[in-house]
């Protein structure tokens, strides 16, 4: 039911031009494959980005507009769903990498097999990954070197084997990173410069990254940060084999009479609809939107949504949770400098320890408290307005910093993404409806990590420390995983170890959806490395491409 002229068939059609889609497009096109990449949002150039907190954070210049792209969410079993901008990610070419500051640590060897280490955790669906660290190691290296990651090999005591150093040394040390190192050193903890998607020196013809205060959650007008937009998209375009179509909103993946993915139905900015056919379809919409698209793609063969015979599409969703202890110091910290996320990290509490009373752990790192101004931050006991609020702004702006955590929220069968039955987006399609109930393990981990973070601040000389515990999963990390988990058992997973649907032989997912667990580490490096691995496999194995002809 399309009204536009049928586009030429593609070898591969990728849905979503963010971190994972663009990484896959680069690998495929560089190996001779013709790719059409459909992106629902605009293709913005660096000239359209700027240092404007009001536009970028408050007025949806980069974030999705909740009036156009709402989601609904509940955090209790029987609760009402409320409409909310839950776990948003920028919808444009480059996706979340357009506005991130890009903390890019690798997962460790243990992160891929937490179930083997801790066993069953009641109420969760904790499993090992069907792949190991070694399966990804060479792809981590590929991403780090293609992308330009600044870091120092070996500085993280808990890092697993690596075959190559980082391409660029760490970014300069911020004052907040220095405090973090000092606090950790005093307590005997290992700390390291956070590996980042930015260039500490010129690399691959790109100049070193500008140390602006407008970085985290701001687009990069200088084009010097490492993002899918600045790196992978140009690489793929340079091959002449990428047809990138922005403002192309996919509403359905169609299937042929044999139950294989046939193509993608999408509408352009003017509302004209097309069907793009391809031998292989790769979903890279982010774990929430990929699940939504599969559930929207109902057919007689797949009445519960494409690739959803197992009823697992959308289930086991995890989001991480970000919170922090905040310390104030007598000497200035200027934690807005560099945008607040030119940081130092520790994996001291990432690995599992039976003595802590919960399973797993997470990455901690220092950060600013604003992004960068005191428009979009506060503290639990700060009044919303008045003389005291103003005084706190003054006291904190130059003298405070956060030590933050990434909580590894464990997967649960009933935490899931579904289609909402009443709320639709501005295109008339049902929005993603999310049920996310924190497990006691998530909350216990959060308390523990925040307590450690507070101690690090105190050890660094903070004169006051405030702890901000979590009491639920709010989606505030914009990280999303698990909705199409990969595994070896078709009864217990949506995708195989190559991130190919168990049920649809030419359908792949390369975003965070395949992650069986979210781990406690920022996911995008691993998402991109895995996308590279899958793309590599699609080329090498032919991946049934011939069967479609």
């Amino acid at each position, binding site marked *: 039911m399309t009204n536009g002229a049928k586009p030429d068939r593609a070898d591969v059609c990728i849905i979503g031009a963010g971190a994972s889609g663009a990484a896959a497009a680069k690998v495929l096109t560089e190996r001779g494959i013709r790719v059409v990449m459909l992106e629902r949002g605009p293709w913005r150039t660096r000239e359209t980005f700027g*240092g404007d907190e*009001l536009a970028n954070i408050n007025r949806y210049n980069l974030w999705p507009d909740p009036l156009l792209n709402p989601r609904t969410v509940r955090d209790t079993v029987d609760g009402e769903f409320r409409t909310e*901008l839950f776990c948003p990610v920028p919808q444009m070419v480059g996706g979340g990498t357009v506005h991130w500051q890009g903390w890019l640590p690798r997962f460790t060897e243990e992160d891929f097999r937490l179930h083997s280490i801790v066993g069953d955790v009641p109420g969760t669906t904790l499993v090992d990954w069907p792949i190991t660290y070694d399966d990804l190691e060479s792809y981590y290296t590929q991403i780090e070197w293609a992308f330009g990651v600044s870091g120092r090999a070996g500085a993280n005591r808990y890092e697993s084997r690596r075959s190559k150093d980082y391409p660029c040394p760490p970014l300069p040390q911020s004052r907040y990173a220095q405090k973090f*190192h000092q606090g950790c*050193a005093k307590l005997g903890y290992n700390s390291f410069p956070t590996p980042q998607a930015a260039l500490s020196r010129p690399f691959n013809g790109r100049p070193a990254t500008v140390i602006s*205060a407008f970085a985290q*959650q701001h687009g990069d007008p200088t084009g010097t940060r490492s993002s899918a937009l600045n790196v992978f998209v140009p690489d793929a375009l340079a091959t002449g084999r990428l047809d990138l179509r922005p403002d192309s909103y996919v509403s359905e993946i169609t299937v042929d009479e044999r139950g294989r993915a046939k193509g993608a139905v999408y509408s352009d900015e003017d509302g004209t609809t097309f069907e793009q056919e391809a031998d292989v379809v790769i979903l890279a919409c982010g774990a929430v939107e990929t699940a939504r698209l599969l559930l929207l793609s109902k057919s007689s063969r797949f009445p519960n949504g494409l690739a959803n015979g197992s009823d697992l599409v959308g289930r086991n969703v995890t989001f991480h949770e970000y919170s922090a202890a905040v310390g104030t110091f007598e000497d200035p910290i*200027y934690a807005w400098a560099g945008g607040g996320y030119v940081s130092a990290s520790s994996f001291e509490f990432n690995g599992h320890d039976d003595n802590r009373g919960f399973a797993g752990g997470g990455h901690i790192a220092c950060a600013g408290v604003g992004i960068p101004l005191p*428009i979009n931050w506060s503290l639990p006991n700060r009044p919303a307005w*008045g003389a005291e609020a103003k005084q706190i702004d003054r006291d904190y702006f130059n003298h405070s910093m956060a030590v933050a955590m990434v909580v590894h929220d464990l997967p649960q069968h009933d935490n899931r993404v579904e289609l909402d039955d009443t709320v639709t987006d501005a295109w008339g399609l049902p929005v993603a409806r999310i049920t996310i109930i924190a497990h006691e393990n998530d909350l216990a981990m959060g308390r523990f990590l925040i307590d450690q973070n507070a101690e690090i601040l105190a050890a660094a000389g903070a004169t006051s420390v405030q702890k901000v515990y979590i009491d639920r999963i709010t989606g505030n990390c914009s990280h999303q995983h698990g909705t199409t988990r990969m595994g070896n058992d078709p009864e217990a997973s949506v995708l195989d170890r190559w991130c190919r649907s168990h049920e649809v032989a030419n359908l792949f997912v390369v975003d965070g959806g395949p992650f069986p667990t979210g781990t406690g580490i920022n996911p995008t490096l691993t998402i991109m490395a895995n996308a590279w691995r899958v793309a590599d496999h699609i080329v090498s194995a032919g991946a049934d491409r011939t069967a479609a002809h």
Partner: protein
Amino acid sequence: MTSQQPDLATTSRVFDDHQRATIEAAMARIIPTDDTPGAREAGTMDFLNRYLSGIDYIYAKPDGSGFEQLSGKRAEAWRQRIERVRERYISGVRDLDERAGQVHNADFVDLAPEHQDEILRDLEQPSRTQEADLERARTTLYGAPVEPALQQTSAEVDLDFVPLLALHTRQGFYADPIYGGNRNRVGWDVIGFPGPASLTEVHTGRYSTLDYFADDREHPGAKEAT
């Protein structure tokens, strides 16, 4: 160095004189003037007026050369949002005066500052006492966010009047001067932020904050690693 200061004379008036004076007085309680400038000196009322004057001042062009023209679904969403926010201000002013009339037999704008604070707190109460609302406000950043630097933005159309007023006052105090507030960068001066001279400085890559990094630019352990 002074920043780009917009010419506000051409912006149409959204509120009548009484509404304007009332909102301006309320904003002056959100960020009061003390030994340093407050909302009044920063021109947060001009900021709000410009914001709500239509959809011509939603996004500054990132090089500072003017404002973006919106179209399509985006423009429609903004028209809706501006309309709803305007209405909330108009009913908010009515509520302030009604409460001021009941308690002090005067308009809000004519009350002493401490009485204005009382009225604002009163008006804030209903939503505060509703457990669910509070929980929601606490965890989703509506209005006055309560956690450090979260990765998520707020949805102001859902805010009650006082949190909305507080949010816009902060925005008008700290946002780039191109939006009509933060006059002469007083907001930045109050907190000690060496912000860019203009959006152009950021856009061209000339604005750097490297001078505010640690004196020792090397992370510890560099020597052992090499």
